[in-house]
């Protein structure tokens, strides 16, 4: 009741002006630019997460160093911290009064940075358990047969953790698309430059432009659904892989 009804109302409102109205609302220059920016930024963030998330997961499972438990605990921090605080902190460090002399405030770089902060745990937390369960015997066998480290990783480790990486990346991508709290303060929300889709929906909604806002909102909704279905598919694929 709580989840489905509002969604139904949203879809209903978006088609109030018919399909043509919906289409022209989505392809309005400002809406289009916001959607493009959102997708591009989310894609970059997903890619960064795929690489560094895997590195961190590997480090946490295979490496031993003092303070590892602490690092492991800190990974979850972006889940616990209100996103608006995350935005404020990134702005404090990489903003106008930056102590390190780097200012990226009100640029697209800032959006990527703060989204990397917010989405950090996803890939780490999906890859970590898989890597933990992975038997090292296969890797040792490959090594003793003369395989280089790169070959071992690419042919033995990567295939097993790939479903984990992908579902983590998909969650990070979904989160990056929908994120608002961390972005509002940091990006300046300049139309055609740093205004992302969720902020666009927010602003149009506040201005009372229901058709514009709901059209873009439905696009975001469709994206979320697609990503969820994709993750479901991945999960089935992964369990089939296990059974085989």
């Amino acid at each position, binding site marked *: 009741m709580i989840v489905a009804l509002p969604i139904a109302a949203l879809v209903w409102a978006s088609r109030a002006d018919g399909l043509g109205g919906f289409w022209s609302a989505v392809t309005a220059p400002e809406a289009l630019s916001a959607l493009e920016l959102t997708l591009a930024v989310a894609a970059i963030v997903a890619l960064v997460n795929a690489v560094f998330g895997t590195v*961190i997961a590997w480090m946490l499972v295979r490496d031993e160093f003092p303070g590892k438990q602490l690092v492991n605990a800190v990974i979850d921090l972006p889940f616990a911290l209100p996103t608006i605080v995350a935005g404020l902190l990134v702005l*404090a460090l990489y903003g106008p009064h930056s102590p390190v002399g780097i200012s990226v405030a009100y640029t697209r770089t800032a959006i990527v940075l703060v989204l990397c902060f917010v989405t950090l745990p996803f890939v780490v937390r999906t890859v970590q358990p898989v890597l933990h369960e992975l038997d090292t015997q296969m890797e040792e066998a490959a090594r003793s047969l003369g395989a280089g480290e790169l070959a071992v990783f690419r042919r033995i480790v990567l295939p097993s953790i790939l479903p984990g990486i992908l579902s983590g990346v998909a969650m990070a991508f979904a989160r990056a698309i929908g994120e608002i709290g961390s972005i509002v303060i940091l990006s300046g929300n300049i139309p055609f430059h740093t205004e992302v889709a969720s902020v666009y*929906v927010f602003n149009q909604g506040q201005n009372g432009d229901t058709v514009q806002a709901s059209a873009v909102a439905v696009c975001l909704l469709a994206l979320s659904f697609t990503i969820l279905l994709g993750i479901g598919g991945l999960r089935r694929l992964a369990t089939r892989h296990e059974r085989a």
Partner: protein
Amino acid sequence: MNARSRRYSVRLVGLGYLAVILLAPLSMLFWRIWAEGAGKAWSAITEHDTIHAFEVTLILCAIAVPLNTLFGIVCALAIVRRRFPGKGLVNAFVDLPLALSPVVVGFSLFLLYGRTGWFGPWFTSHGIQVLFALPAMVLATIFVSVPYVAREVVPTLREIGDEQEQAAYTLGASSWQAFWRITLPSIRWAVIYGVVVTTARCLGEYGAVAIVSGSISGSTETATLRVQDYYENLDQAGAYGVALLLGLIAIAVLVVMTVLKPNEGVA
């Protein structure tokens, strides 16, 4: 490159990334408070509107968390133990708030309870204010935090299987007894963990509540909205003061999560 230097380089890359992305911004929380002056931050925290904002946040948590805990357990039981038509759909809807933008959530509620919405006119004619008041904010908070308890409980339920419950039934236990005596004790860590995550999510919610609350100072403003309010009024000390308080709560949540984690086994 030998094994040792490879391991060190992976460690360097991983920790370096964490330092730049995560720890450096976090340290700013304390540094900025110190730079702005702790006194100013303290007076911002103890200001009437700020205290009220935290009260509103607490009320939202107090309503949303128990409801979602109950709902999450029921939902998880239904998903794991029962077969019914449309189960896949229910599953998808429970997970949806994880992937959906909170703005979309807020805007949908705005449409549903707005002046021209499906329910808006009915509530207005009965003199109940939903939008820009507590009810809509509660709905928004519940919506965004629906999945967390269910998601923690589902895997645990799958793992423990239903043999013990079956045994209880054959010994004449009612389904209520079986739940209280068998099922609940075995999933309790998952439930507690889910509750902690749900609470964190409710405390930090911004996007959905921002739309439906109208963020009126001293009335419908939550703690996270208060941070933005201070920031936009160029009151840096106030913004960082409230942020620090929220950050400390987050760290407390993190500590609880870390302590609880070993109890749920290898997730």
